[in-house]
């Protein structure tokens, strides 16, 4: 999986992440995510389920599920 093939770059090497951060009140803050980071850590997985299972980060789990809901990840 090459995330450059499925994500729109809003800045060079970065894509929108609606779950970039979370406040103490549980509100998610939109930001960006490094596409190189995604390729490095999750490029070896074939689908969203594998990626979700491979991380303990709540934000990343939600991000991958969001991509799946958008049809960008199988």
């Amino acid at each position, binding site marked *: 999986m090459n995330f450059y093939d499925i994500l729109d770059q809003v800045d060079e090497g970065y894509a929108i*992440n609606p779950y970039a951060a979370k406040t103490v009140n549980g509100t998610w803050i939109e930001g960006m*995510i*490094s596409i190189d*980071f*995604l390729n490095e850590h999750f490029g070896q997985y074939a689908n969203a389920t594998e990626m979700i299972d491979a991380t303990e*980060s709540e*934000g990343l789990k939600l991000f991958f599920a969001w991509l799946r809901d958008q049809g960008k990840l199988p």
Partner: protein
Amino acid sequence: MKVNQTDGSIRDEFVITGPSGEKVGVNGDRLKVDANLSVDNVTVSNVGITSVDGAAMESTGKYMPVKLTGSNVKETVLINNITVTPGSTIYQSSVNMTDCDFFRVIYENTVNTNYRIGVFQQNMSIGYAAILLAYDGTQIQGKDDQFPYSYPNASRNIWSKLYTPFCATAKFSFENQGGSEVTVSVKLVKLSRRGVV
């Protein structure tokens, strides 16, 4: 031991000096507390020194992180206790820094991670100045190579641009470059104008 604000020619503000006048460090440095010296007594020109975690600095022979406090040191919280997703960047709304004063950015985190704090002008044009000091409550975490420079969201080397004034409406960003979530607070510290303290 005393706290000096030295003359403008070398732009050293709030320099911590030892008993013989030798330079010990600046705000954010770890300060070695020698025997028979009480940091509580170190107050000059309305600037005091406290440990980062507020603990009494009575131990001797230990290096402890310090920061300057007092009415001449103004702090603005840029990011307050935000948990940042791995690989992600968040942005802080603009801060007026158009008075060309000197600023420092203090970063506090929950775990060690690689990170980048970006400081850039509102219009994304060239012009940066930030002093990035990092603490985890016991020691400085930030190192020069943890603030890589990349245009336009540039984070300046901690020390090389230590005394550069910033004259713009600025935006800040924080990027968690590590593989784990990190809860962070980032403060902007505005130092008094040189010669005013």
